[in-house]
């Protein structure tokens, strides 16, 4: 087997070159149709490029699912001020491991995506903001980018079109919040990665005070394929509201975790049971977090009919997010895992907003108390109350991101909390 993540029923568009070292070179990528997408974009022009992406229905893969073509169309049309494309390669949402895979196996797929995006929004410079920890994959991308410059694919006069597009790799230094779009901009400008109040939106005042668009790695990587084959082609997969294919990052208690590419709308249970080989050791499913740790947790029952598209996961009471499916079997200690998440968000809160700074810290303390058998039933009400105060009250949604797993876990796994509380009470009484 060449590559661990593979299943015969996949639809491999983004992941076709995964596991094939040849795909890292310009020649290898071109042999797979690479650089034909940007060539077509340059041929049809900016407006038509945006229209093609709009027609595809591609939605942002960084978590929020915002339509990419529409986002691009918000950029000012005049060229009086420099425009910037920012590629968000800060991948740090717990459970998510797709962008690193795109970067290390198919660096030219991302470079080409950056070219398409930059061209569409009239940016002469694209910054790829890479997570600091990604040293190895960053250097693969770096070598590929040098090669792309040598071949005249990036830089002055891209592919002889007269259009100039530079790409610069910018490496971060460890902070989850730099993945938030305005936090990323602050960090790129050499500041603390603190998110900014919107409006103004990035398309008006973004990086370096100039109109900017920010897109996730997987979003940009999909665009060359859309340009090459057309928006309609992309719509042959997925649903009306969630067109195309998506990398599903499956982790946790399955026999074959990994990145698998399927059309959006793929049934969750088929992914877990057939593609990933099911749960080992004959255990039963307990819970799934379908979109990375910032979304509501689902019970096994919620998963049964759930299809993995934006509207499907929403109907099942959660969110698709980055499609990071974290599978938990019956032995999982839910309270401990929610406490671990709370610890993460408390550690990563940038501290600007009181409800977030205080809320994440308090929630962590209360959850630890419950975990250690010193909690009370009132603590559960307090947790829900804190979570309510943390929702919709802050500059960015990091705060909401902890509130969701807390509230949903108390709602769906209240018995787990109560068992710890009761056990503590019995020990205390004895």
């Amino acid at each position: 087997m060449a590559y661990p993540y593979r299943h015969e029923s996949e639809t491999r568009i983004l992941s076709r070159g995964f596991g094939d070292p040849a795909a890292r070179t310009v020649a290898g990528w071109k042999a797979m149709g690479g650089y034909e997408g940007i060539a077509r974009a340059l041929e049809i022009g900016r407006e038509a490029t945006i229209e093609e992406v709009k027609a595809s229905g591609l939605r942002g893969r960084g978590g929020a699912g915002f339509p990419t073509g529409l986002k691009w169309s918000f950029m000012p049309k005049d060229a009086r001020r420099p425009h910037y494309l920012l590629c968000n390669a800060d991948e740090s949402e717990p459970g998510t491991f797709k962008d690193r895979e795109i970067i290390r196996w198919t660096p030219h797929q991302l470079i080409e995506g950056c070219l398409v995006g930059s061209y569409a929004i009239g940016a002469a410079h694209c910054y790829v903001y890479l997570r600091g920890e990604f040293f190895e994959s960053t250097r693969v991308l770096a070598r590929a980018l040098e090669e792309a410059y040598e071949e005249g694919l990036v830089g002055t006069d891209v592919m002889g079109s007269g259009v100039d597009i530079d790409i610069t790799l910018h490496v971060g230094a460890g902070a989850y919040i730099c993945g938030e779009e305005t936090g990323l901009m602050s960090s790129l400008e050499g500041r603390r990665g603190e998110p900014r109040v919107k409006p103004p939106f990035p398309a008006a005042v973004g990086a370096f005070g100039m109109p900017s668009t920010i897109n996730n790695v997987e979003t940009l990587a999909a665009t060359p394929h859309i340009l090459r084959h057309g928006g309609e082609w992309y719509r042959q997969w997925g649903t009306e509201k969630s067109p195309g294919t998506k990398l599903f990052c499956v982790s946790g208690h399955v026999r074959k975790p990994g990145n698998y590419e399927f059309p959006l709308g793929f049934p969750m249970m088929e992914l877990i049971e057939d593609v990933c080989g099911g749960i080992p050791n004959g255990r039963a499913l307990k819970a799934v977090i379908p979109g990375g740790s910032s979304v509501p947790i689902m019970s096994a029952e919620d998963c049964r009919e759930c299809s993995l598209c934006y509207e499907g996961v929403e109907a099942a009471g959660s969110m698709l997010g980055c499609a990071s499916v974290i599978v938990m079997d019956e032995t999982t200690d839910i309270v401990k895992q929610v406490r671990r998440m709370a610890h993460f968000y408390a550690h990563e809160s940038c501290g600007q907003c009181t409800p977030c700074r205080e809320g994440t810290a308090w929630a962590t303390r209360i959850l630890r108390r419950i975990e250690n058998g010193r909690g009370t039933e009132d603590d559960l009400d307090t947790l829900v109350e804190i979570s309510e105060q943390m929702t919709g009250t802050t500059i960015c949604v990091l705060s909401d991101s902890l509130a969701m797993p807390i509230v949903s876990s108390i709602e769906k796994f209240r018995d787990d909390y109560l068992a710890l509380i009761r056990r503590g009470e019995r020990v205390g009484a004895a």
Partner: protein
Amino acid sequence: MSDARFRNPGWAGNTGEFDLTEADVRGSEFVGEQPLDGGHPSVAPSLPYMLVKKDPEAPLFEGPYLERFEKIRSRYPMARAALIPALNLAQELRGHVSPETMDEVAALLGLSDAFVRGVATFYTMYNKRPVGRFLIQVCTNISCNIRGADEVLAAFLEHTGTELGETSSDGDFTIAEAECLAGCGFPTCVQINSRYFEDVSAKDVPAVLERLKREVNDGF
């Protein structure tokens, strides 16, 4: 399908299950030499800054490093944007970023000491104190956690005889807890200096440490 652990060649090379070598997975041959002057300006800010070799007294930005720094500066429309790449470079040379280093960087970039300290302390990858030749960061976030990351972390502490954040007496190892490293599919994911080691279980720990000891002089 068997319940046998599904192994990634992330650190062990060919495990017999995949015909990819470790070099294939890491892309190390493709990457090749990494010139100190940073190579093409587009990639000059992207060199690894967690290395075995550390010289806390190293001068900042001389020779090829100065060349690299000038390339970096040419890529941003405002001078301040070179701050994080400059701090990265300082850690690459010195192994940690002390308050004195922060002030030196501030002077070089014409920024106030207070501003640079505020920025440098915001980011967790800057080692505020010296660390061992190998900084071993074990992810204990959710996907790794439910697959035994706490035991992996405990095994690293046990086999190096250290407490969290402390450096072993031979100066080789410092163990830290990390947040999700985006390698959740092959738990436990461990970052060791600039490399990832994936699919590490508690019983692999002695072999990983042995391997690192052999590599102390290889410059990773």
